C-alpha cells in the first residue's frame, strides 16, 4: 500500500521507490486528473512555476524559497521531465504532492510530457536505467495524457496559464475546453500549439523554428487578453537567463524555473506569485549545484564542443 507522506520524504531525499508504488501513484493521479477540466480554475494566492526538467535539487530549493506545500499553493506549467538527471524523482514528487494535496497543487502539461519527446531527451532512458524496464516510463506517460492543458488564475481580469502559448485555432478560452486532451501530444492543431508556441516580435502568426506550434506577437496577445477578459498570459517553455521576462507591455510573461539549465547554461530561475489583488511578485533563485560534479549519476558529464 502506497504511503504518500513516506514517498514524499523518500523522493525529497532522492531515494528509490518501488515500481509497485509508482504504479499505484500513477493510477491515483489519473483518477484525480481525469476529473479536471482542460483549463483548471485556480485560486489566488498562487505561485506559478516554469520548466523543472528533472532538476530535483533545484525544485527543492524552489519549495524552500517560496514555501512548502501545502502551506503555499502551486501551479506548475509543465516540462517536469527530460534533460536533468532526476526527471523521475521530480515528476513523482510533484505527483505525490498533487495526490496528497489536490487543491494546493495544479500540474499542467508541457511539450516534454510526451512519449515521443521523452524517448529523445532522457526521461525514457532514465526510467530504464533506474528500473530496468520501461514499465515506470509507461505509467508516467499515461498520467501525462490526463494532465490539464492550462489554467485560469484569479477569475475575471486574471491570468491565463499555459506551457507554450497561443494557437491560431483558439480565440477564446472556452474553445480549449472542447479539446479531447486525453491523448499523446499531436504534431499539429490547437493542443499542440498550446504546448509548443512562442511569443516573438512578429506582426502576425508565423512559422516556429521549433517545427511545431507558432510564433505569435503583440497583436495576438492583445486580442486574446481583451476577448477573454484577462490581464496576463503566464507561460514557460523558453529558457530566460534572468529567470523571467515580461513582453508586450506586461501582457505576457515567460517564467523559467530551472536554474543553470542542463548544468550548463549559467542562468538564474524564477517563480511568479499572484496575490489576491492580482499583483505580480517575482522571486529569483539560483542553482544548488553550480557544477555537475556533485551530482551522483552514471550519466556522462555535460557536453561541449572540444
Amino acid at each position, binding site marked *: 500500500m502506497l504511503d504518500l507522506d513516506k514517498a514524499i520524504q523518500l523522493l525529497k531525499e532522492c531515494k528509490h521507490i518501488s515500481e509497485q508504488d509508482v504504479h499505484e501513484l500513477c493510477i491515483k493521479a489519473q483518477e484525480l486528473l481525469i476529473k479536471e477540466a482542460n483549463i483548471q480554475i485556480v485560486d489566488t494566492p498562487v505561485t506559478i512555476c516554469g520548466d523543472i526538467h528533472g532538476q530535483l535539487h533545484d525544485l527543492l530549493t524552489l519549495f524552500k524559497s517560496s514555501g512548502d506545500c501545502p502551506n503555499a499553493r502551486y501551479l506548475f506549467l509543465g516540462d517536469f521531465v527530460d534533460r536533468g538527471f532526476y526527471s523521475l524523482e521530480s515528476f513523482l514528487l510533484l505527483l505525490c504532492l498533487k495526490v496528497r494535496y489536490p487543491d494546493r497543487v495544479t500540474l499542467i502539461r508541457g511539450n516534454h510530457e510526451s512519449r515521443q519527446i521523452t524517448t529523445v531527451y532522457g526521461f525514457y532512458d532514465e526510467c530504464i536505467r533506474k528500473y530496468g524496464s520501461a514499465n515506470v516510463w509507461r505509467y508516467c506517460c499515461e498520467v501525462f495524457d490526463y494532465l490539464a492543458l492550462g489554467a485560469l488564475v484569479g477569475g475575471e481580469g486574471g491570468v491565463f496559464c499555459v506551457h507554450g502559448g497561443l494557437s491560431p485555432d483558439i480565440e477564446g478560452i472556452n474553445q480549449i475546453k472542447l479539446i479531447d486532451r486525453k491523448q499523446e501530444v499531436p504534431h499539429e492543431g490547437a493542443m499542440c500549439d498550446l504546448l509548443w508556441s512562442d511569443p516573438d516580435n512578429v506582426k502576425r502568426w508565423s512559422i516556429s523554428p521549433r517545427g511545431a506550434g507558432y510564433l505569435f506577437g503583440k497583436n495576438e496577445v492583445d486580442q486574446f487578453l481583451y476577448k477573454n477578459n484577462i490581464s496576463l498570459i503566464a507561460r514557460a517553455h523558453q529558457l530566460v537567463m534572468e529567470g523571467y521576462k515580461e513582453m508586450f507591455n506586461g501582457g505576457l510573461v515567460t517564467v523559467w524555473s530551472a536554474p543553470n539549465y542542463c548544468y550548463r*547554461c549559467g542562468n538564474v530561475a524564477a517563480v511568479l506569485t499572484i496575490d489576491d489583488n492580482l499583483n505580480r511578485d517575482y522571486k529569483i533563485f539560483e542553482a544548488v549545484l553550480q557544477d555537475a560534479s556533485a551530482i551522483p549519476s552514471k550519466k556522462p558529464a555535460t557536453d561541449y564542443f572540444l
Partner: protein
Amino acid sequence: MDRNTKVIRSTDYDALSCRISAHKKQYIQDEYLQHIIHGFEKFLKYEYKLSSRRILNSIINSVKLPIINRGTYIRTRSIDLIIEKFLEKFESDDVQIINLGAGSDTRPFKYLPTNEQISWVEFDFKDSTKLKNATIVTDPILSKKIGIKPISDIENLDNFYNGLNDSLISDRYKLIAIDLRDIKTLQDILNQFLNKDKPTLIISECMLCYTESLNSTEILQTLKSFFTKTSIVIYDPIGGDDNFGNVMIENLKIRNISMPSLLEFNTLDKYSQRLKDLGFQDVKIDNLNNIMNNWINDDEKRRISKLEFLDELEELNLLLEHYCLILTTCGFDWSEFDLEFTQ
C-alpha cells in the same frame, strides 16, 4: 604521456564521436570516419592498454543531442567553407594547409585527391600521430587518398605498431609528431618541411583553448613570422560576459580538462584585440550562431532543420554564441572573401 597531454588528447575522441554522430544523422557526410574507426579498433589498444574498449565504445556508440549535432555541423562546415574559399583564391598556386592539433581529422583525405595544388601538414602529440599513422598506412583507401602505398602484409600487429614511426612524411601529406609548446622544435619543423613563400592556411580547431595563453601567443607569433602569405583560422570557445564560462570551467574540471584562457579572452572583442596586439592586422571574428545564420543558405538550413526535431532552441543559440570563428590574414589581400563576419 603526461596526464594533461592525455586529457587534451581525449578531447579529440570527443570531437570524433561528435562527428560520427553528426554523420550518422546526415548533418555532415564523412565517408572516411569508418576508416578511422577501423584503425582505432586495431591500434587503440597499444595506446591504452586497459581502457581501449571503453574509449572505443564511447567514440562509436555515444548518442549526441540535436544541439550537439548542429553545433558539430556548423563547426565542421564553416572551416570547410574557409578551406574551399582559400583553394578558390589560390586556384593556380601551390598552397600549404596546416592543421594544428589535427587529431583524427579526415579533411586531408577529402581535399588532397581533388586539389593537386595542396600539400597538407598535420601536427599533433606523438601518440596521436602514431595511431593515425598506423591507421592510414594499413588502410588501402586512406593511403591512396594521400598518395602513398599501403602496407598489406603485416605478420605481427604488435611488432608492426611497436616499430612504427610517430610521424608520416610523404610527398603531399605530412603527419608530424610535436608538442607545439616546444617552440624550438616547431621552428625546426617549419624550416625542414614547409615553404615560407607558399600561400598557407593554418587551421586551429579547438586547440589554442587548451594551451596557456603564453604558449599560444608564442605559437601564433612563430607561425606568423615564418610565412610570408598566411591566413589563420581559429575555432575556440569563449567564456562570454555571463555565467556560461564559469559553469563550463567547472564542468570541464570534472573531466580534468582545463581551458586557461577561456575567461581571459571571453568576448569577441577581447579575442580579436588579443590577435591585433600580436600584430595581426586583418582580424575577422564572429560567434558560431551568426555564422550558422549568415553562412548557410536557406535550402541547406531547411535540410538541416528536417533531420532532427530540435526543441532546445534557446540553448542552441546560447551554446553557439559561446564559440567563435576567427579568420586573420597576413601578407596577401583577401578582400574577395565573401562570407560575412559581423566583426
